[in-house]
């Protein structure tokens, strides 16, 4: 049976059903429904919830709990995610699986609390110090939040790479009907021989660490991480294409903007313009092959990149297109959100 849930609540419930048993977080708008929901829900399933003293502490609690073998998660919004970056870098290097949710608000600085996409670079290019990436998803609907969260711990553990969900305030607040999956059976998960469960002695001690004083050792670790990112790219990359078969103009956007652009495609089609949509679902690794495929089609004249920022994903789009087709940019800023009609006006005004 379907349930009507807010995006934030759906994320929390799907995390529980996907095996989340530890959460630490700090209040910040617009993601508070996630910790609020988990504060009582985790107790029901025998998990642990900590309202941490800061985002810095929260991410390090996740480091400890994830390193000790639990399915651990934290959530925050832009300024709070900035504070977590130190811990995220350590987690990436120590190869601790975990899930980090960022319901993005506008910035820089304290910014505003309305929806934005200005954290794309931070999420997809590493975010903290050093040479690493996260596996980043940009869901567009509440159901997609559920589907991604439900499997996020599996993917994170498979590749021992932290997963980030890049949403926004709109996605957190919107209510939609969703189908919730069954609780995962945690007794059937693969063993974690690397986790510090306390039983290690002598040669079998487990050390969770991100310190590699010898350059040769550090080099090996970074190469291992990047080999894993290649593997993730081969196996986990996802994008949605909509009416691209005969499209001459390809709109491209991620997350909630992706669904607004989908409506714009429909309006454009009703006006006789052959528009299509390419919506990346994994933002890192970026599904560049989908862009390359469309760029090679003769009928595709150009791409229109749409974001709630000054244009960050557009850099990945341009790299993927490799100069084969022109790209125009349309953005709204500061927490303003464009409507489908705004996109149509832009496309007609600029492209006609």
């Amino acid at each position, binding site marked *: 049976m379907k349930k*009507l849930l807010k995006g934030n609540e759906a994320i929390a419930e799907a995390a529980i059903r996907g095996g989340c048993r530890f959460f630490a977080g700090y209040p910040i708008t617009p993601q508070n429904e996630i910790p609020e929901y988990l504060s009582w829900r985790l107790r029901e399933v025998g998990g642990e919830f900590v309202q941490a003293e800061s985002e810095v502490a929260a991410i390090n609690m996740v480091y400890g709990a994830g390193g000790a073998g639990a399915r651990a998660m934290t959530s925050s919004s832009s300024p709070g995610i900035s504070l977590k970056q130190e811990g995220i870098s350590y987690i990436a290097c120590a190869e601790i699986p975990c899930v980090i949710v960022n319901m993005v608000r506008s910035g820089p600085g304290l910014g505003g609390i309305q929806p934005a996409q200005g954290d794309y670079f931070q999420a997809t290019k590493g975010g903290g110090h050093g040479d690493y990436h996260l596996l980043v998803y940009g869901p567009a609907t509440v159901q997609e939040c559920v589907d991604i969260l439900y499997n996020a711990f599996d993917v994170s553990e498979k590749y021992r790479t932290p997963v980030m969900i890049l949403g926004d305030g*709109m996605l957190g*607040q919107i209510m*939609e*009907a969703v189908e919730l999956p069954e609780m995962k059976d945690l007794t059937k998960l693969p063993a974690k021989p690397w986790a510090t469960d306390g039983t290690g002695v002598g040669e079998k001690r487990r050390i969770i660490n991100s310190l590699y004083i010898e350059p040769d050792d550090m080099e090996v670790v970074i190469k291992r991480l990047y080999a894993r990112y290649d593997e993730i790219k081969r196996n986990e990359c996802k994008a949605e294409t909509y009416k691209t078969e005969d499209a001459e103009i390809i709109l491209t956007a991620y997350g909630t903007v992706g*669904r*607004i652009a*989908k409506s714009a495609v429909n309006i454009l089609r009703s006006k006789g313009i052959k528009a299509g949509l390419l919506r990346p679902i994994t933002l890192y690794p970026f599904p560049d092959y989908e862009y390359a495929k469309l760029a090679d089609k003769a009928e595709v004249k150009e791409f229109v990149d749409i974001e709630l920022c000054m244009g960050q994903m557009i850099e990945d789009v341009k790299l993927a297109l490799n100069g084969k087709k022109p790209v125009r940019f349309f953005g709204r800023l500061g927490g303003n959100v*464009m*409507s489908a009609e705004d996109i149509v006006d832009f496309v007609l005004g600029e492209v006609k």
Partner: protein
Amino acid sequence: MEEKIIIAGFGGQGVLSLGQFIAYSAMYENLSCTWLPSYGPEMRGGTANCSVVVSDETVASPIIATPDTLIAMNKPSLAKFVNKVKSGGTIIVNSSLIDEKVTRTDVKVSYIDAQALALEAGNAKTANIVVLGAYIAMSKILPFETVYNTIDKLFEKKPKVIPVNKKAFEIGFNSVK
């Protein structure tokens, strides 16, 4: 079918829950629906609004530029959204709090004295449910029974208030017949 509704008023008038009644009912009818509230400091004592999109196909954009229907529960809300309603659309005006008339001639306007009708139902707090009834009667996007039963489900934890809300819904529904 795609119906785009903006519901706006003071915080505390139940505009967000009015939208949720439509969203839940749409789900029970197996329609696709999005409910998107305004959020932030304006909610604390200021104006609140939500955008509801109901469709028999999957809803893509939850952002409404030109609503098919505007439900205005107070004056500032009417002023803010009146010119956004699409030509041929509907405006429901809570005449208990809004003493002016809509000057547009290309829209259907219905004035509901929600406060008086809510008192008639037995509780002034049910004004939003009165308006819900009026909206369902006018738009016909959802069957009376479905929304009526949604009242049972959403007030499951407060069964005492179910009868008065159902009465408010009926009164609102019949007020536009």
